[in-house]
Structure formats: C-alpha cells, structure tokens
C-alpha cells in the first residue's frame, strides 16, 4: 500500500531491542522462527507456565524486519500463598521474522492464551502463524487491506486522502452561504416585518 505520510523521523538505532538488557527484570532471549517452538516448549517445561503476551514490532531496514515478542512469567497454579508466588521470574523471547517469509509456528496448542494474541499480530503486522486453528483478522474488519501497525502503513489511509470529505463538499448551498431551507436571517426578518405591516429595516440595502 503506498504511503501518503512519511513515517516518523528515523531515530538513531536500527535495532534498539536488547541493547540495555538490565533495564528491567526480564531475561531476554533472541531466537529465529525455526527455534522458537523448541525454546518456548523448553521454557514451559522450566516452569514458565503463563504466557503473558505476544506482541509485534516492525523495524524496516533491519534484517529480519519484524519481531514477535513473547512475554512469559514463571507462575504456576501450585503457588497458593503470597510467599510461594514471591517474585516470579520473567522472560522475554524476541523472535526475528524476515519480511520475505513472515511465518512463525503457532503456540496456541501450548497456551490457549496465544489464540487471540497471534490473531492480533497477524492482523496488525501481517505475520502468519502456521498451524493456528483460526487465523483471521481480529481488530480490523475482515475485508481490510494492509497491516496497520507496519511502519510503512500511513497514519491516514490513501483512500481517505484522495476522497473529498462528504460532509460539506456536497452541500453547495453551504458554500454559497444559504441554509438548505433557503431562508437566511435577513430574509426571515423581512418576512416578519412584512407580517407586522412594518417597513423592513434592511441594512444590506
């Protein structure tokens, strides 16, 4: 889809992920789409039982272009006291996805939580999740074209820019300064004055 608005001015870093890994509590792992399935299965086995979120990010000009970001937390159903929950470990798995083949295996069979999250990444970034049972758009209408959160997707759609806004453009009488009824304030005053049998006070003449 052609861009009608330049994306935000490019900053300095082409790949700002994980440049300051100690900034938050999470351990950061970077993998390729081929390794993601095995990595997440291993982490789930290590006790990272909850998949908090799957998000996407777009870095045009970088190879691979997209990131699919998995946030996991080591929270198990056996923890029944505040002390047992403690400070659960967090891990963030960044999976670089190339633009040429934007496909990642689905995790919806490992975590049912992944179902909607993967649909959203597909909807907004166009990353496909192979094996997903029901991969269709979730936020945008089904007939939508393009992937809105990609950086080359315009903030305002090109179709919207080319089409004149219908609200005022079609109402030629508005442009001419006459209301749709044809009754201007001056005409109304003349009519009232005539009904009262007075000489109309017409400032315009």
């Amino acid at each position, binding site marked *: 889809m052609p861009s009608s608005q330049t994306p*935000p*001015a*490019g*900053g*300095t*870093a*082409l790949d*700002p*992920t*994980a*440049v*300051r890994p100690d*900034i*938050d*509590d*999470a351990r950061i792992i970077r993998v390729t789409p081929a390794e993601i399935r095995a990595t997440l299965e291993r982490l789930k086995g290590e006790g990272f*039982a*909850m*998949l*908090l*979120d799957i*998000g*996407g*990010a*777009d870095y045009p000009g970088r190879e691979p272009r997209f990131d699919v*970001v998995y*946030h996991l937390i080591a*929270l*198990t*159903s056996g*923890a*029944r*006291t*505040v002390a047992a*929950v*403690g*400070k*659960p470990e*967090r891990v*963030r798995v960044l999976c670089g996805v190339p633009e040429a083949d934007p496909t990642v295996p689905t995790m919806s069979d490992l*975590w*049912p*939580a992944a*179902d*909607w*999250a993967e649909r959203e990444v597909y909807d907004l970034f166009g990353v496909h999740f192979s094996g997903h049972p029901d991969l269709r*758009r*979730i*936020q*945008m*209408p089904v007939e939508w074209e393009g992937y*809105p*959160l990609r950086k080359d*997707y315009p*903030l305002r759609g090109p179709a919207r820019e080319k089409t004149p806004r219908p609200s005022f453009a079609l109402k030629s009488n508005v442009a001419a300064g006459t209301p749709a009824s044809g009754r201007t304030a001056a005409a109304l005053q003349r009519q009232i004055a005539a009904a009262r049998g007075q000489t109309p006070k017409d400032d315009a003449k």
Partner: protein
Amino acid sequence: MTASAGAPAHGLEVVDAGDGRMIISMGPQHPSTHGVLQVITELEGETVVRADPEIGYLHTGIEKSAENLFWTQASTVIERMDYLSPLSNACCFIMGVEQLLGITGDIPVRAQQARVLLCELHRIASHCVWLGTGGIDLGAISGFFYAFDLRERILDLTELSGGARMHPNYLRIGGLRDDLPEGFLRKLDELIAMYYPRMRELRALLQKNPILQDRMIDVGILGADDAIAWGITGPALRATGVPYDVRRAFPYSGYEQYEFDVVTRTEGDAYARFMVRLDEMDQSMRIIEQVRKKLETPGPVMIADTKFAPPPKETIALSMEALIHHFKIVSESFRVPPGDVYQAIEGPRGELGYYIVSNGDNRPWRVRTRPPSMYNLQVLKKIAVGEYIADMVVMIGSLDPVFGEVDR
C-alpha cells in the same frame, strides 16, 4: 423459538444450525455486554455448546497514534485505553518511559505517593462501575446508584487533581503536572469517611442478596490450571486461589511501604470473582488511608532535571535557560535513549503491561499494550461451554472487560 435464517446481522440474530442446534449472535449492541462485544453462541436447547466472542468493534488504533506522538504527548491517548481507570494506564506507560530514561530512582516521593493514591482511587472507581453494571445485568437496579454515587465522588477528586473528570492527563514523565491542589485532602477525607458506610450498604444490597448468589455461585467456574494457561491475571486469577498481584510481586512506585492483603478465593466461579473485587476495594481504601497520612508532608512533585520537566513558570521570565528548556520540551519533547522495556502494574483488571521500544527519537518507536481484559475475556470461550445462555451475561460481567482496552 422459531428459527429465522438471514435476519439482519445486528441485535439478536437466530439461525438454525441443523441437528437441533441453534446459533444466536449476542451483540454487538447487546446491553449486557458492557460495551461492544459480540458473542456467537451455539446452543443445544438452552445450553451453550460453543461461544465465540468477536472483538474489534472499538478498535481505535491507539498504539499507532502513540507512535506518532511525542513521548510527552503519548500518555494522553494511552490514558483513553482503559477509560474506567485512566490513571493506571498513564502510570504504567510513564513508569516504563522513566525506566528507559533511567530516572526511576529520581522521581520525588510525593509524586510516587500521589500516583499510588490516584491509581487506588481509580481501582475503586473502576470496580464501582463493574459492581453497578454487574448488578444491573442481574436485575439489581438500586446497587447501581449507590455504586455510581461513590464513583462520582472519586471523579470529583480526579477533577480536582487534573481538571478533567475522566482523563486528566495529570501524571507526567518525571512526576506530576502540579501538586495536589488545596482542598484535595479535605475532599479525600470526606470520601474516606463515607466509604465504609457506603460499602456496608452495597454489601447488604448485593453481596448477601439471595437472588444474586443464586445467579453467580457455581457459574462460569475457572480452575487455577486453566487460568494460568489462558493468561488470566488480576481478580479473576486470584478468585482461583493464586495470589499473584503485581503490587506485591514487583512493587513499583513505593507499594512495598503499604500494608494490604492480597485477597484470594478458591472457588473460581462468578461469585468468587465478585467477592475478590469487593474485598479488594476495601484493601485499596486501606492503602489510600496510609497514603493520606504520608501526603501531609509537602515536597516537590516533579523531577528537578529540566531536560525532562518543564521549568517552573515563574523562572521563565527570569532565566533564558528556563525559557529554552520550556520551549524545547513543548515543541519537540525530549529524546529517549535506545532500548526496550516491559513495565507492568496491577491494573483493576490484572497485569497491565507496556512493552515500549525507543530508537533514540523523540517519539516512541513501538508501544505494545498487554491488555489484561483481552486475555480475561478470551477465556469466555472455555467457561461458557455447558452453561445456560441466560448466565452468559453473568460470566461476561464477572470477567469485567473494558472494551477500550480489549480493542485499543
């Protein structure tokens, strides 16, 4: 009930799916869906055999908008995600940016206290909406007015703090916009004084109501294992017995100083979620009372570094540097060093998280929300199966989704 295929796709649409099953489309204009939610429901008699929630009717592209705004402007739109507790959104995003800037340790104590106070006030306000509308779903109209009256007083306080009732844009990167105004603490005392009597009335009206208990107990049961697998957080998770609360597990903004209990229940049904939220409101008030005492001590509310904080108004007429800093912050914001961060807080609905990426520019490169109500709502696919269609509104209400956040 007669089946009529091809009815218009709004309101309650009924389709005969053959073999005695019937597909009913609830919503998106159904009054009990707390927003614009459509649930495609397959029924066998009155029993739900498949429920497929359709979301996206309120998608506003806030994440995309935030990428195109300055760091200082982005919290304005981000506040509008969860419109029932706007300050938790702003607080979480702003703390994430502060992490990226490396100024988390420099935030003035009074600003942190005010953030805690406002987040807890908004938790109560948000639960008031859930309690009032949840009661209406079940036919209990009176509770709505008592709950909304309480919420109204919290919105009055919000208005005092930032000038607007719902989206005050009061929290800033580095602290607060202004100090709490004169008279705020007096109004807060009035709220604290009326809170417990009001909750007694609400509990008498709703909690002990036998009709409500009949409708909620053993409805929409969710076990702890399923809750973990579906990514459920917040009151819905604590109603299954797992006491995970971000305020306790990863204390932020000084939460480690306050005494409060993490409320849990073990039943995992709609009534357990109801009770967890009710008891959580009391715990929020406990925190508010503790913050109230600390707020007696005056102090700065904004970081001193004028690279991030606009200098005080009175210095602008006296100092050239102050004028320059003020102009630069307003006209082009500031640059945030490259990096990515995941910041989470305990919102009223669960773990609210922001994954923020900065590439070194004066706008965020990516703001990804971890929306608790989206994950909480998703589990409807599981818990609705085997329940009566009439209990669908009970289950939706007990999950407490807010669609500004689900759809963003």
